């Protein structure tokens, strides 16, 4: 399976994503420049973390009009997988690949630490190597991660398996104390209706190598392969 990692001006998670895809799971990986129009026959597109275009106007607002996004949107419309991490999640929301938006953290503080989140949907192409209710240790690093959407969108996400991950305590309970950014219902990651676009604020690619202290993010990559985690 071939992974394509988009590099926008200001991306800083692209090398981490490349390392996870190329080294941690050993798949062919290439960088895709934001000004290109060629997805180079990649099977999975990763929109990485960072501060594309300096987060000017709104995070992701300008990146979504990058030339390569036309192809990324077409790729997603074909049902092919798009993994949108952190700033990539913001870009995906701005591009209409996912519903809702990401607002300034309720604390107004940038948070950079390992948090715990619970797997809410373990049947998607990104999460099938986990089990429902599994608690993952995974880093976050964002200032604008407070997921929000209209109440009918939230109801649909909650009712139809659209919530992939939710912030929780290490024991797996959900409360406002463990909600790192004030997201609606503690939502950390969502799937689109077709289930082929995952947007998440936490960084699975930074939890994909034992040297990083947690490998709990590897399941996202293994799920895409359809393989089995030991």
């Amino acid at each position, binding site marked *: 399976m071939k992974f394509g990692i988009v590099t926008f001006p200001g991306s800083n998670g692209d090398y981490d994503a490349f390392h996870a895809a190329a080294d941690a799971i050993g798949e062919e990986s290439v960088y895709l420049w934001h000004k290109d129009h060629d997805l180079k026959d990649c099977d999975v597109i990763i929109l990485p973390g960072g501060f594309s275009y300096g987060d000017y106007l709104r995070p992701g607002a300008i990146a979504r009009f990058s030339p390569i996004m036309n192809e990324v949107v077409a790729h997603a419309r074909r049902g092919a997988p798009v993994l949108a991490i952190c700033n990539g999640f913001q870009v995906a929301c701005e591009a209409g690949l996912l519903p809702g938006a990401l607002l*300034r953290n309720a604390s107004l503080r940038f948070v950079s630490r390992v948090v715990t989140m619970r797997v809410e949907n373990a049947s998607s192409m990104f999460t099938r190597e986990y089990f429902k209710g599994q608690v993952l240790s995974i880093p976050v690093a964002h200032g604008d991660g407070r997921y929000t959407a209209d109440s009918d969108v939230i109801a649909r996400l909650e009712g139809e398996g659209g919530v992939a991950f939710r912030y929780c305590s290490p024991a797996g309970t959900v409360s406002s104390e463990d909600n790192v950014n004030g997201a609606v219902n503690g939502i950390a990651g969502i799937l689109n209706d077709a289930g082929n676009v995952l947007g998440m604020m936490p960084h699975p690619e930074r939890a994909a190598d034992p040297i990083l202290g947690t490998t709990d993010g590897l399941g996202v990559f293994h799920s895409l392969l359809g393989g089995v985690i030991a």
Partner: protein
Amino acid sequence: MQLYRVPVQIIPRPGILDPQGAAVAGALRTLGFDNIADIRVGRFITVDVNATDAQDATGMVRRMCEKLLANPVIEDFVLEEPTLQPGGQS
């Protein structure tokens, strides 16, 4: 064609929690401004455009807001009256 300046206010939609506004309100209350009921912090943008008339200028900036300048999920926008600027293309 004449040059028009169109000011745009972009404000968080009602019901959207605005922690920045809340922090500013808290600071002002600390300074003794006890009568504050609410503060919302948004963004103010001026767009200078070459247009045939004020209506044309407003229409263009409205489309800019719908396409990029505002995110309808979280923000409302208000267009102010265009004002004629010196130096328009003819």
